[in-house]
């Protein structure tokens, strides 16, 4: 119980200290995860929409695969990316192992299926609702696509947030790929693992509380933006 009490005071102390080391860890966590989510959206939105609207042989299999990849264990993704980027691997010459870039690559692979799969479901539901209407208007594929995506934008933020939640919370991939190097690849989750391994349980929990607060802030910001945008859309 004492650990919990100490943890809250440590979290508070960390937040108000503006300690340079601590801020660089928080900054890197956000930079890696937000970049990965952005790239995942660039791939996942079109991919999900495409799979929801296109009719091709093996589509059922593609949907199944996409849904399965949502549950891909971070440690497995970490291992695969590690083997690819290791000096002994095919992309070893790039020297990317143990860099933030490598961590972004791994998290992008983790997040893309989540964004794509949730996009597919959202767009498919919308299509069931408006498909008839769009067809009667003789809308071309491009108009159909853009209409659906614009209409789905509020539901799609859930896909983005789910992806962000996955990225910011995972430790398995970034630990293997980044190596938890101080000032270079140490993020919130790997710092928590490190403090736990030193037996500094209250510091570790304090970092965990800060991480939760960070996720809360990002979600609140998105909800705020979404809310005001929805109000504007309703007025228009």
């Amino acid at each position: 119980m004492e650990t919990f009490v100490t943890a809250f005071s440590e979290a508070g102390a960390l937040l108000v200290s503006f300690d340079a080391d601590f801020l660089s860890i928080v900054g890197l966590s956000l930079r890696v995860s937000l970049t990965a989510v952005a790239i995942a959206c660039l791939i996942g939105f079109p991919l999900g929409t495409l799979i929801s609207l296109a009719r091709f042989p093996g589509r059922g299999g593609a949907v199944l695969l996409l849904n399965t990849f949502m549950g891909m264990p971070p440690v497995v993704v970490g291992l695969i990316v590690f083997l690819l980027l290791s000096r002994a691997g095919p992309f070893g010459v790039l020297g990317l192992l143990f860099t933030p870039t490598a961590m972004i690559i791994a998290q992008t692979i983790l997040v893309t299926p989540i964004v794509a799969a949730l996009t597919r479901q959202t767009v498919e539901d919308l299509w069931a609702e408006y498909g008839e209407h769009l067809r009667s208007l003789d809308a071309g594929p491009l108009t159909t696509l853009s209409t659906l995506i614009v209409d789905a934008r509020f539901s799609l933020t859930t896909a983005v947030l789910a992806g962000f939640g996955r990225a910011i919370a995972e430790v398995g991939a970034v630990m293997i790929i980044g190596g938890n190097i101080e000032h270079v690849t140490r993020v919130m989750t790997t710092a928590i693992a490190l403090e736990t391994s030193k037996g500094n349980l209250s510091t570790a929990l304090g970092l965990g509380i800060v991480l939760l607060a960070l996720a809360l802030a990002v979600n609140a910001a998105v909800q705020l933006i979404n809310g005001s945008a929805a109000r504007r859309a309703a007025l228009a």
Partner: protein
Amino acid sequence: MVIRAALAALMLLTTGPAIANDDRPLLLGTTTSVDNSGILKFLMRGFHGDTGIEVRTIVRGTGAILQLGRSGDFDIILVHDEAAERAFVGEGAGATRNLVMTSRFLIVGPAEDPANVRSATDAPTALVRIAAGKHRFISRGDDSGTNTAELRLWSQANIDPRAASGLWYRETGSGMGATLNVASAMTAYVFTESGSWANFSNRGDLEILSIDGPGLRNPYGIIPVNPTRHPHVAADAARRLVDWLTGPAGQTAIAGFRVNGEQPFQPASALPATPANR
């Protein structure tokens, strides 16, 4: 045209890292025990101050570090499994092995010591007592240097603890810190090392029970990854780190390092100059 451009890009990629060898930070692969104790940060700060070379460290068990060293993912490694280190150099993966420092292996356990490890004259005797009473013992089980040393002592005691795996013998498959956390939570016996123990805060009811003895010395060797096999390694900077750590500056720093008043590491220069220490 396209092929030529692709080739040019490929050449740029392959030659790029080789050119940048001296500009980029040195990548050091090392073990949890050195890192958790805080000595690594302390020594690398001193090295950086003297040479201006930045060192980035990746921390895993010795087995994993050797494997990564083999594939050329590090410039240099600092580990503690003498037999494996000699094999590493012997097969051409490493350039030379240099003894840097030693720490002590420890048997840590419940303060009331039901197996009576405290009165054992050496480590194998202590292990025999733990096994005889089927007292819970937590092992790393991860191929690390500490794990290898522990298994060597079990075999000296003529006991195969893995036969009791999952019963009184528990293998965490994790780093030293995680394993100590498990031992602390279960108030069990555990095989650890002075560097990690000195800096471990979640001790609970555990305390040091073993005395210093044969087989409990823990030597750390530093090995530059062989530049003939992996031309991309920063060989010059790696050599300078070896010279610094084994030279007067590094050895004095190791001798002066304290955690909570304890000195977990002995510099190699403080050891008697026997062939085994080379």
